[in-house]
């Protein structure tokens, strides 16, 4: 087994030290055969964990595969990603989630933890075989119809109750479908000007409000995907104050970008939920710092060129995000390393039940970590992305921080900013 000695690394911004990675764990000492990496000026973070990744396989391998998405994740500093269920076929059976899990193992760049669909075919009519997915080799714990909302309140209640048997969690895509028919962007001043059908904030807030009450009523865990509005933050704040077992995520793009970008009608800025206003962005940032929002999740959503190089209304919503998430968060939060580690590694790992991830970088812990050069600045070039898709909203933007190396159980997946395989 290989071993590495990271010389002069700053763990979460602390004073430089040496970190030995031996046999997949962090060790007190390294022997003389250890490969030495000069890590001076680099910050070590526990390997990032993404609760919300679309890997597109099976079904849209032209947009992304488990392998290309895993590589993008590793390059972004991730050691584990949760793969959303809206593939084709939908990940609503043990067979599909095991396939995705196996593909992740074969790629070997990050731990790919499949998310199972809540309902058969994401159709919102009938529960999928949640128990079978939970006891499959993929050990599914998170269930989500992401892309669609589990809109039927009775079905949502049943799902929340049912997964208690195996400590599951329902991750809700909060979007009241009747309030967002034909919706193209945030409903507000800009949608009025652009003549694009609005996606009102209340369509998200109403579902979150209903779901926290349902979760409270049945005593279950609820996770809210991609929270995007100031109103949602208030609903979550109140629910948490009452002790409801709810967690929530925000995407990097909702922490940085606003609906004004739609004025170009370039669908690279089309995403669901849509980019909101500057005051929403402000509220989301505050909520993330406070802990009302628990984690940053990418909602990495690769799309083929033809699904974006078209009219706004015909474009698919979504942005790639794995390779830019940490730089965006750094630009938003600054070098608050412990906070970043919490929101991007520890807490998502805990929510997903990924025990080998998100652990402190102390002796004996699994050597899942990433090294960041905080002084570097990079202009985002879509052509350089490892993702198979190019739909980044940050093309030409200068972002702080460069992911220099990532280790998965002591083995480098990224070195010198390049994927090892």
């Amino acid at each position, binding site marked *: 087994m290989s071993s590495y000695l990271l010389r002069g690394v700053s763990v979460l911004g602390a004073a430089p030290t040496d970190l030995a990675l031996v046999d997949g764990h962090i060790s007190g000492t390294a022997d003389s055969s250890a490969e030495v990496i000069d890590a001076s000026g680099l910050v070590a973070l526990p390997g990032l964990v993404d609760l919300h990744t679309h890997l597109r396989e099976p079904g849209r391998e032209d947009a992304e595969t488990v392998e290309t998405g895993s590589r993008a994740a590793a390059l972004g500093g991730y050691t584990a990603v949760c793969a959303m269920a809206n593939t084709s076929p939908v990940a609503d059976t043990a067979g599909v989630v095991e396939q995705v899990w196996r593909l992740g193992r074969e790629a070997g760049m990050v731990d790919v933890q499949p998310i199972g669909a809540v309902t058969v075919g994401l159709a919102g009519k009938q529960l999928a075989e949640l128990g079978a997915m939970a006891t499959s080799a993929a050990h599914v714990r998170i269930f989500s119809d992401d892309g669609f909302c589990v809109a039927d309140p009775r079905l949502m209640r049943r799902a929340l109750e049912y997964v208690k048997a195996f400590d599951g969690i329902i991750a809700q895509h909060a979007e009241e479908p009747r309030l967002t028919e034909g919706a193209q962007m945030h*409903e*507000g*001043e800009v949608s*009025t*000007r652009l*003549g694009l059908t609005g996606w009102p904030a209340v369509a998200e807030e109403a579902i979150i409000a209903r779901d926290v009450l349902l979760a409270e009523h049945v005593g279950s865990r609820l996770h809210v995907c991609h929270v995007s509005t100031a109103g949602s933050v208030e609903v979550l704040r109140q629910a948490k104050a009452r002790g409801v077992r709810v967690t929530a995520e925000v995407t990097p793009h909702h922490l940085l970008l606003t609906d004004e970008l739609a004025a170009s009608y*370039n669908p690279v800025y089309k995403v669901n939920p849509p980019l909101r206003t500057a005051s929403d962005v402000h509220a989301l940032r505050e909520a993330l710092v406070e802990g009302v929002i628990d984690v940053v999740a990418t909602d990495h959503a690769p799309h083929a060129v033809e699904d974006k190089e078209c009219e706004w209304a015909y474009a698919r919503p979504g942005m790639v995000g794995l390779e830019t998430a940490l730089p965006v968060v750094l630009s938003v939060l600054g070098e608050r390393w412990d906070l970043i580690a919490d929101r991007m590694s520890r807490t998502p790992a805990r929510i997903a039940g990924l025990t080998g991830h998100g652990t402190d970088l102390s002796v004996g812990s699994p050597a899942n970590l990433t090294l960041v050069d905080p002084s570097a600045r990079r202009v985002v070039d879509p052509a350089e992305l490892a993702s198979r898709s190019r739909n980044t909203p940050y093309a030409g933007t200068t972002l702080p921080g460069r992911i220099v190396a990532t280790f998965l159980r002591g083995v480098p997946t990224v070195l010198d900013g390049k994927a090892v395989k």
Partner: protein
Amino acid sequence: MIKHLRSAADLDAATATLILDTAGEMAALAGREVKKLPTLRGRTVVNLFYEDSTRTRISFEAAAKRLSADVINFSAKGSSVSKGESLKDTALTLQAMGADAVVIRHPASGAPHRLAQWVDGSVVNAGDGTHEHPTQALLDAYTMRSRLGRIDGLKVAIVGDVLHSRVARSNVLLLTTLGAEVTLVGPPTLIPVDIAAALSKTTKVSYDLDSVLPEMDVVMMLRVQTERMQDSYFPSAREYSRRYGLDGPRMRRLPEHAIVMHPGPMNRGMEITPEVADSSRSTIVEQVANGVSARMAVLYLLLGGKA
């Protein structure tokens, strides 16, 4: 001079006035025996229509032909477009054909903006989704100016389904740029959110047609599609026309000089009664004739100089 006309917001007051003045000259030329002008000889104008709109297409076609441009009509029906060719691929085809201007009508808001990113020629928005229809606003402004002598200071009510109306958006932008005061009137369900902030700070909103009529110089009635009933924007056609339709008694609440406009096609009996549509206040027929002049002016100003 501007390169594209994608939105009425592309026009500042000076440019808009220049277009209206030019339209006036074009209208004067329309009265003579030889209507054709050699101005755009050798230039190619493509009418790229993804929606059926015979009136608008014919108006643009007549405008381009009177200026001697070569006109190519490229309609979505019976072309590669209906076989699923993307807008971008179509744009590259038009580019290869050497289109100097593309007049585009499209059901998706913002399609002209996308097109302008892919072609070198000028792009003229002939109506995009629920966004804008800037040449309609120009012909409406021209009609107002012809009838009332000015636009600055006019009080204009735009009545009906503002939410889905590209005519309304373009008119609010253009008329306020030219100094008119616009009041949007309709049921609250059909007035888009934050309209004043979105388009123009001086825009007012009213839900009560009767109360605004006595002050207006112009009332522009918008077409209201009965399908909107199914989406609960209003309860019934009867209730809509009772509250927001323009009939004879309502028309008589207007000042003596006030005019009634409609972009067409009308739903007679829904938003406007035949008595009003056929009255001497109605400019509906003039608007059609003015459409050709306004579009000639736009084509001349976009294509009549150095590219």
